[in-house]
């Protein structure tokens, strides 16, 4: 087995095994929370916390976990991290806690987290598991924020780029332009299009992800056609 590099594992999680567009898992928060860039970012951060915690500890304990009860044990471990981030959000970032609602506790049944624990962390040492966790989280975050941005732009005509920051000692999600060094970023970024309200509603969510998946499929098909042609096949 070729030695996989740390960075290689990360990149795999983002593109080849992208949890949302390739593995098509964990869709519920992706569609529900992608109504705006800020919400998507918050969710991505909470998810990353749980994903890394779960992968690290499942991997650490993998030799000790009895196979018969491994799923309940995974759930216990994941649930601990989920409850932790849920409580911390409630105390330290109340507006984001309100915005994300029940989708934070629902990370515990997110197919991605349990799936990676079973398929990867349970069979691999800690360092690769960390890489996998980072890659998958970035892939998830990228998908979430892509969807969130598209829906926010098309649905409201503007994009508000926000970031987790501490302003005047208060932790919260602030516009990117508030962060020193980034004040050139307009807030919000206006687009001269007529907003289509439907995009921030449920049908808009399904439409956006369908369109994105269609786009990626066409791109992937083209690439494969080119590859086959190069190898001399008649198309």
């Amino acid at each position, binding site marked *: 087995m070729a030695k996989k590099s740390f960075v290689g594992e990360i990149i795999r999680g983002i593109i080849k095994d992208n949890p949302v567009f390739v593995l098509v898992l964990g869709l519920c928060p992706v569609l529900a929370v992608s109504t705006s860039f800020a919400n998507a970012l918050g969710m991505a951060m909470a998810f990353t916390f749980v994903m890394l915690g779960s992968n690290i500890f499942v991997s650490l304990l993998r030799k000790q976990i*009895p196979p018969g*009860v491994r799923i309940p044990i995974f759930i*216990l471990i994941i649930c601990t991290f989920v409850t932790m981030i849920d409580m911390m959000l*409630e105390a*330290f970032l109340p507006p984001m806690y309100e915005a994300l609602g029940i989708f934070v506790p629902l990370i515990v049944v997110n197919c991605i987290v349990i799936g990676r624990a079973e398929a990867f962390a349970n069979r691999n040492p800690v360092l690769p598991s960390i890489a996998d966790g980072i890659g998958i989280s970035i892939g998830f975050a990228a998908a979430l924020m892509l969807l969130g941005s598209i829906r926010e732009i098309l649905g409201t005509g503007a994009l508000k780029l926000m970031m987790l920051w501490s302003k005047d000692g208060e932790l919260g999600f602030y516009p990117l332009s508030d962060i020193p060094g980034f004040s050139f970023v307009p807030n919000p970024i206006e687009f001269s299009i007529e907003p289509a*309200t439907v995009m*921030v509603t449920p049908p808009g969510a399904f439409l956006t992800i369908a369109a994105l998946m269609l786009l990626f499929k066409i791109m992937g098909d083209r690439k494969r056609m080119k590859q086959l042609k190069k190898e001399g096949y008649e198309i």
Partner: protein
Amino acid sequence: MAETKDSIVMILFKLTLIAVVAAVVLTATYGVTQEQLAKLAEAAGGPDKQLLEMGVVPDATKFKLVGGGEICYEAYAGSDLIGYGAMAEVQGMQDIITLAVGVNTDFVVTGVVVVSQKETPGIGDKIQKDEGFVAQFAGVGLDGLKLSDDGGEIDGISGATISSGYVTAGVVEIIGKMQQEVS
């Protein structure tokens, strides 16, 4: 990878051990977060402090709970009763909206603040972001508290008329409760 299968006892032991560790970690986190939550609640203060800070009754210096009341607070400027204030949850289009309403002694609105809402981002949430919207409520009496489309004095936010309607109805509802508690 050969591993000896664990006996039932061992399995139960491991399960319990993990459960105990989880419980300990969570209780510790709970302690930390509760502290922070308590700090937040204290800083925000009770409804009387919040109503004062929000300025729904201008010139008020103190709010005091109406005798036997639940949400209605008497607004005092010094020792003169100048009006009433209340903060309550009302139904919005998507979810609950928390409103703070101030009225004078004739129950004419002196100020409205949308404390929290979960309306559609970018559309319904303008009820909170558009300062001009809530500013309209000042000086309007109960008869005028309807959307201008229904013959009232409140202009709904274009594109967010449903949420605007819910806020207006919510203000009426809160004033009704205030009147009940005052009498």
